[in-house]
């Protein structure tokens, strides 16, 4: 089976704060985004870079995905950021202000050059473009497909609402269309979609509501600003016991159907066919990634053997 790479939680960690960097190994987020951009004041850009490089060199037993948010490529820091951190082999780059596919393609070219220089496999460094303006939302369909390195689209609601000159609300009506478009773009390209941060660290109920909403819409995860938010998001994304039980019944039913030589069967009065099985497998894979079940799941179950 293809293991599902969970990206429910991508935690931002400021790149200029040693006390926070040193705790990266202990937090249970699926990934971290070490920030060299907005979190780092102009006077500390170079210090932050050196610190992040040193931290990554020392962080030998990587236990989560490491992304670096560099400064925009058209700023005077972006390329220096890459030069400083890539030798320490992060998993990928979160690219701010990825408003057009050309910007992402430019990063792709730069990464290829660095990979050649470092003598490592081409395509190793991944890209997570930040869709955080009206232009980015409009171009998201092309951005999602412009490079093999792009594994997900990240929606950035704070910058997006700023670019629209509107307020961001906790209920998020103003984001609905943009979020949906980002999800369509990502899903059509077969990649993941990561939702924006929830800034109010004290409001766990608000975070829970927003996470439930974005999960229903189709996002696969969320960027976070505080480790305290991890648990809530994981809880929301964890499949419920009933969902797991139903998915197991579906798999059992379809296997029985195949033994009888058919691809369709009724379970509790409802028809079970390929899309239903597909959804059930997704639930089981997620459950397995959450350590809620302990079984191997094979895509073969959907269509049977040839």
């Amino acid at each position, binding site marked *: 089976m293809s293991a599902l790479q969970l990206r429910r939680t991508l935690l931002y960690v400021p790149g200029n704060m040693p006390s926070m960097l040193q705790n990266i190994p*202990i*937090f249970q987020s699926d990934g971290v985004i070490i920030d060299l951009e907005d979190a780092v004041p102009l006077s500390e850009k170079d210090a932050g870079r050196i610190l992040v490089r040193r931290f990554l060199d*020392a962080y030998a037993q990587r236990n989560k995905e490491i992304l670096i948010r560099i400064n925009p490529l058209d700023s005077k820091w972006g390329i220096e950021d890459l030069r400083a951190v890539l030798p320490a082999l992060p998993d990928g780059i979160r690219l701010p202000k990825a408003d057009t596919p050309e910007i992402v393609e430019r990063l792709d070219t730069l990464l290829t050059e660095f990979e050649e220089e470092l003598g490592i496999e081409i395509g190793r460094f991944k890209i997570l473009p930040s869709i955080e303006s009206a232009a980015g939302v409009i171009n998201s369909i092309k951005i999602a497909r412009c490079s093999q390195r792009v594994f997900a689209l990240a929606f950035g609601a704070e910058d997006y609402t700023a670019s629209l000159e509107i307020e961001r609300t906790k209920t998020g009506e103003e984001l609905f269309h943009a979020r949906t478009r980002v999800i369509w773009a990502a899903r059509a390209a077969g990649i993941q979609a990561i939702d924006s941060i929830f800034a109010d660290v004290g409001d766990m109920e608000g975070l829970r509501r927003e996470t439930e909403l974005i999960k229903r819409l189709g996002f696969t995860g969320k960027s976070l600003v505080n480790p*305290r938010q991890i648990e809530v998001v994981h809880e929301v994304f964890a499949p419920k016991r009933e969902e797991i039980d139903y998915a197991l019944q579906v798999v059992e039913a379809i296997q029985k159907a195949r033994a009888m030589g058919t691809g369709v069967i009724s379970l509790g009065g409802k028809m079970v066919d390929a899309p239903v099985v597909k959804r059930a497998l997704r639930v089981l894979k997620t459950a397995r990634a959450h350590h809620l079940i302990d079984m191997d799941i094979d895509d073969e179950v959907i269509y049977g053997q040839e």
Partner: protein
Amino acid sequence: MVRNSLGRWIPETFNGKALIPYRDPFALQPQGMRASRPLTRVNPGASKVLGSLREAIEASGLRDGMCISTHHSLRNGDVLLGQLVREIDALGIRGITIASSSIHPVHAELIPYIEKGVIAGLECGVNGLIGEQISRGLLKCPVVVRTHGGRARALVSGQVPVDVAFIAAPACDEYGNLSGSSGPAACGSLGYAQVDAEHARVVVAVTDNLRPYPVAPLSVPQTLVDYVVCVPTLGDPKKIVSTTTRITTDPVGLQIAQYAARVIEVSGLLRAGFSFQTGSGGISLAVANHVRTLMRANRIQGSFGCGGITGYFVDMLEEGLFQTLFDVQCFDLKAVESIGRNLNHVEISADMYANPFNAGAVVNRLDAVILGATEIDTRFNVNVNTESNGYLLHNTGGHSDTAAGAKLAIIVAPSMRGRLPIIRDELTTITTPGDTVDVVVTERGIAVNERHADLKRELLRCNLPVKDIGQIQAEITRITGRPRPLEFSDDVVGLIEYRDGSIIDVVRRIAD
């Protein structure tokens, strides 16, 4: 000098008394009878009320070289001990031993009286400056640190004979019935003072709230109280409840708490009849909060919560998650308020709470306890008394008692503090033996004492980050480096007494 079973060098005598080196947590057997106090008679019509502290000291017959006690339920808000020592000094009495249940930073005011010879010894642990000065050799005053249960044992067994107990009484009547749950200095349980009332030769109730006879419900009854004295104030109520009583917001602390709660869950102890104790620190409270959520979700009705009681435990009692709270000390005003009105919130004495030498203390009935540490070694021994600078700064409290009593004693601690690793090869001081510590939880991993192979397997099965304690230590020291060991002189300035009276460690003066 002899080495105790943990490898610590213990002198044969200290302050003129022979010492028993620590061997193991449970084997030492008590000898003899419970100590008591002289018979007395108060005839009808006699008054117990005296005009001042000075009159009470005189009436008690306190003389040079005797021993007095107070309780620490007013914590850092207490003004009684300071007042007493000033009066004792004014009366020209010298060489007094203080056997209070604890001494707090506010009692740094005693330092001049130690220097002057009014106070000649401390039969109790110290929090704060006095301990620091003793450790540095700036102050000469032999100190014996005891656990809460160990102090009760020392009084009950007669090891520490208290001549006069001065009991700060937030509410008291003229015949000596007293209570902690109301009045301007209300502090709730008087569980420590109850032991003193039973065993001191003379008992003086000191109150700032004299009420019409009879005061009820009772913490200490009239039959044990010889004199009653009114003073303008017992202390500053704002400082009485001085401990941290908020859940931590520090992500590292929350991570530790989450692991600790999972350990309790996976241990299988969290079922009907569960009993639990935590301290009042931010991480402990976060663990309590997780446990509460789990108990609610699984509809578990617990048996009792115990120890120093916080508002969190009061909420759990009122929610029906515990049947009873056993309260030796209230940690916040919510607990104080509850103990005065809820019959299931029970005031217990330190004897009942934790004395190892009676027919069974409450700690023996604990399922799980969450405890802290200043240092831990790779054999699971724990230090809570001294800091990395070698200063004696903290009292033991119920640490060793609950660790010995509970089925599951969990130490929670951040892996480093102020750039220093929390897990050491050698401790500055051993407070609680590793034989009684079951699990150590840091944000970098969970270490399980090898006595619990089943628990370790189960935790691993649940994907918790269980590691060998040496491995966690290595991970930490890779970041922090190894601190240079402190240098101590040979002078023993204090004893760390285990709960059974044997000597688990000593405090040495820091080298110049």
